[in-house]
C-alpha cells in the first residue's frame, strides 16, 4: 500500500512543477478530477450491477465504497471548472449541458448515499441503491458526449478521441501522467474504503478475528 501511495506521490506531485503559464494549466487539476468523477461512477455502477445480478456482497461493498470518493471528485471537478469559467467565460456558472449534467452526477452520488443511509436492512439498502446506481449510469455518456450533442460552451474533447490528441506533446504528457496518477490513487483509496466496508459488514465472520489478531 505504501508503495502505491509513494508511486502516486511521484506521479502526481512531479508534474506540479511544470513550467507552463496561463489559465490552461487548470486542465491538470480539472480534467483529472472530472475524469475521475465519471470513472468512479462507472466503477460504482458496474459493481452495483454485478452485485444485483450475481448477488455478490463484495460487489455491493465496492459500490458503496466508491460513492463518497466519487462525490468528492465531482465537487472538485465542478469547483475547479467554476474557477476556470470565471476568467474564461466571465461567469462561475452557466446552465450549460455539460455543467448541468455534471451537477446531476453529484446529485446521483448524494441520492445513492442518502438511499443507503436511509435503509436499515443492509440487503435492501444494497438492492435499492444498486438500482439507482445502474439507472443513473445513463448520465455518464450524456456528460461525455454533451459537448458534441449540444451547442456547449464547454470545449470538446482534446485527449480522449480517436486518432491524434489535439494537444502538444509538452502539454500532453503531464496530463496523461496526472490521469494515471489519479487512477492509481483512486484504486488505492477504493481498496482502503473497501477494507473498512467489509470489516463493518462482516464483523461477525471468523476471518475478521484472524485479520485483527
Amino acid at each position: 500500500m505504501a508503495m502505491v501511495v509513494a508511486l502516486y506521490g511521484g506521479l502526481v506531485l512531479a508534474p506540479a512543477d511544470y513550467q507552463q503559464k496561463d489559465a490552461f494549466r487548470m486542465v491538470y487539476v480539472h480534467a483529472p478530477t472530472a475524469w475521475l468523477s465519471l470513472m468512479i461512477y462507472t466503477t460504482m455502477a458496474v459493481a452495483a450491477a454485478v452485485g444485483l445480478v450475481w448477488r455478490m456482497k463484495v460487489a455491493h461493498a465496492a459500490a458503496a465504497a466508491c460513492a463518497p470518493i466519487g462525490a468528492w471528485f465531482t465537487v472538485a471537478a465542478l469547483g475547479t471548472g467554476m474557477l476556470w469559467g470565471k476568467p474564461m467565460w466571465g461567469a462561475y456558472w452557466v446552465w450549460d449541458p455539460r455543467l448541468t449534467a455534471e451537477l446531476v452526477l453529484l446529485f446521483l452520488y448524494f441520492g445513492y448515499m442518502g438511499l443507503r443511509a436511509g435503509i436499515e436492512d443492509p440487503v435492501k439498502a444494497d438492492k435499492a441503491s444498486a438500482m439507482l446506481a445502474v439507472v443513473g449510469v445513463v448520465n455518464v455518456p450524456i456528460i461525455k458526449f454533451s459537448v458534441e450533442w449540444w451547442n456547449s460552451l464547454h470545449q470538446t474533447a482534446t485527449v480522449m478521441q480517436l486518432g491524434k490528441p489535439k494537444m502538444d506533446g509538452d502539454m500532453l504528457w503531464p496530463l496523461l501522467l496526472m490521469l494515471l496518477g489519479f487512477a492509481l490513487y483512486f484504486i488505492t483509496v477504493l481498496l482502503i474504503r473497501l477494507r473498512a466496508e467489509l470489516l463493518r459488514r462482516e464483523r461477525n465472520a471468523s476471518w475478521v478475528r484472524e485479520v485483527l489478531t
Partner: protein
Amino acid sequence: MNEFLEMGGYGKYLWPAFALGFGVVVLNLVLALNSLATAKQDARRRMEMKL
C-alpha cells in the same frame, strides 16, 4: 517567483483550483484511512465483548 505565482494574471483562479483539487485528493485519503481505523476499532471492541 512572483511571476510564477501570478500565472499571467490567472493566479487568483488557478491556485484556489489546485488547492481544491489536491485538497480533495488528500482529504479522501484521510477520510478513507479514518474509516478503516474506525471499522477496525469497532471490530476489535465487538471481539472483546464476545470473549
